[in-house]
């Protein structure tokens, strides 16, 4: 690879590559993990990766394009809202299950 690290950094490609790695990791986790909370976390990792790609690829050598930045910020807001919502649902489900059959919540976590 003939690109020196500073060039990679300045063009934002490093962010993109890191983002892609995060997406891959998150996706792997999402597929292999069964517990909803873990899946939710995995999805957040994927999201973080995507935002990195979005921010990194929009970054030029001399100036930063504000357009992808605006997108990233909106995306993060949406992601936070959805995560909160998902977490609330998981909590609610745990509560209903606990109320329904107190002894049976162990089989909810088939640990990978």
């Amino acid at each position: 690879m003939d690109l020196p690290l500073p060039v990679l950094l300045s063009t934002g490609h490093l962010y993109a590559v890191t983002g892609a790695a995060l997406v891959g990791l998150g996706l792997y986790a999402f597929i292999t993990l069964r517990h909803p909370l873990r899946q939710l976390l995995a999805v957040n990792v994927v999201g973080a990766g995507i935002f990195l790609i979005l921010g990194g690829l929009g970054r030029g050598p001399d100036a930063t394009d504000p357009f992808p930045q605006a997108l990233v910020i909106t995306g993060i807001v949406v992601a936070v809202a959805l995560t909160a919502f998902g977490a609330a649902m998981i909590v609610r489900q745990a509560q209903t299950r606990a109320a329904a059959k107190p002894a049976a919540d162990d089989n909810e976590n088939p640990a990978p």
Partner: protein
Amino acid sequence: MSPLDLLMAAPLGFMAAALMLGPSGRWLILLAAPLMAGLALWLALLPPDAAYLVGQWDLPLGILLRADGVARLMILATALVIGAVGLHALAEPPEKPGHAAQAETFWPLVYLMWAGANAGFLTTDLFNLYVTLEMVSLAAVALAAMGSLAAALRYFMIALLGSLAYLLGVALTVARYDTVDVILLAQVAEADLATLLALGLMTAGLLIKAALFPMHGWLPPAHAAAPAPASALLSAIAVKLGFVILVRLWFEAFAAVTGPAALHVLGGLGAAAVIYGSIQAMRQDRLKPLVAYSTVAQVGYLFLAFPLVAGTVEPSGAWAGMTLHGVAHMLAKAAMFLAAGLMLKAVAGDRIADLGGLAQAMPLTVTAFGLAVVSLMGLPPSGGFTAKFLLLSAAIEQGAFLYAGVLVIGGLLAAVYLFRALSACFAPLAGAGPDTASRGPVTGGVQAVAPLALAGLAIVMGFAGTALVDVSAIEAPWATPTVIQPEAAP
């Protein structure tokens, strides 16, 4: 603020008001239904060249709202469906005390979905579409959660994955073209690796949202378990937004990129969905899963139309068939879910075999169900027939006999499973005995009229074919390409 903005802003306002008002927020629908229906009708009757920029930004940063034929029809159908479903839910007799909080959350979610759907149908900005997609998904998941938390959670996870795939595709598009506007993309898009990857990711994400076979797994449990008004909204509206965005991508933004092979993949999946969904629906013993699987099948027709639209130089027929099928399905399926909800409540069961005697006990509701059956099967006169007729004509004209065959067989299979449910209503009371006399209260009034009105509209659509075809062609991508001159908002 133009009425176009109001189509998105008003539901958000109603949502805020419903949140603040609490239990009495339910009455807002009495104001919202006529207001939104009026706005949607105004939009549908607008002269054909009304596009309007929001905010002070010029393209590529400004957000373009465009009232094309698809948007007009979808928004009108959405207003009618949500209005009717809302009035139906308003008339719902008070539930058991424990469910009060649940009933309260219903209304803000309805308005959230309304705002998201309207914005999604109008906007041409891919990132904006992402936001609307999430609004609708959020509302849809929460509505599904009112029935079964487990099904809703499954739906949520899969929908989230779909959203992220879509977002990744948008990110790649931004990186490649530095714009996310559908109209601008249409002028610059090329078939290179980045574009194909972006389109593939976005498509995969949206197919999950649209529940196209084989990515439909989340739909039947979520739709079948939710309360009837929620199921109606899920099947009618939530699924359609993904479809509309796919139309924007495949026929407009990346029309130069999509090849016949890829279109036939979508068409083939659609055809498989029609057959698979129908067979699954035939195998159900319970009414609501049957209706839910029918949605899986009906979504298939929407995508079966893709290669038919792309396969001819004059696609107005196939295009109208595709759009009208979406609209007819919205009306008929919402009507069917509402009617099914009333019927199941009356017999206090959930099996098809429990429905005996209903034709006599609740004729209005069974009529609504029957009219919805007519439209979903594609029998004349109905919107469903007009749509399938246009698609079948297109398929035969193009010599696409495989698609034609699926259209024909799909209709027959639909007849098999839908008439099974309908004829169960004509059977005498199941398990005749002294207790059958006390069989549920016969619901009349608004609750029964709402599904009847929706199903009636699906039938009436069949008489307005020419007008609807004309509307669907407004600013369609295959019509004369319009070059947008960026202008500040008036």
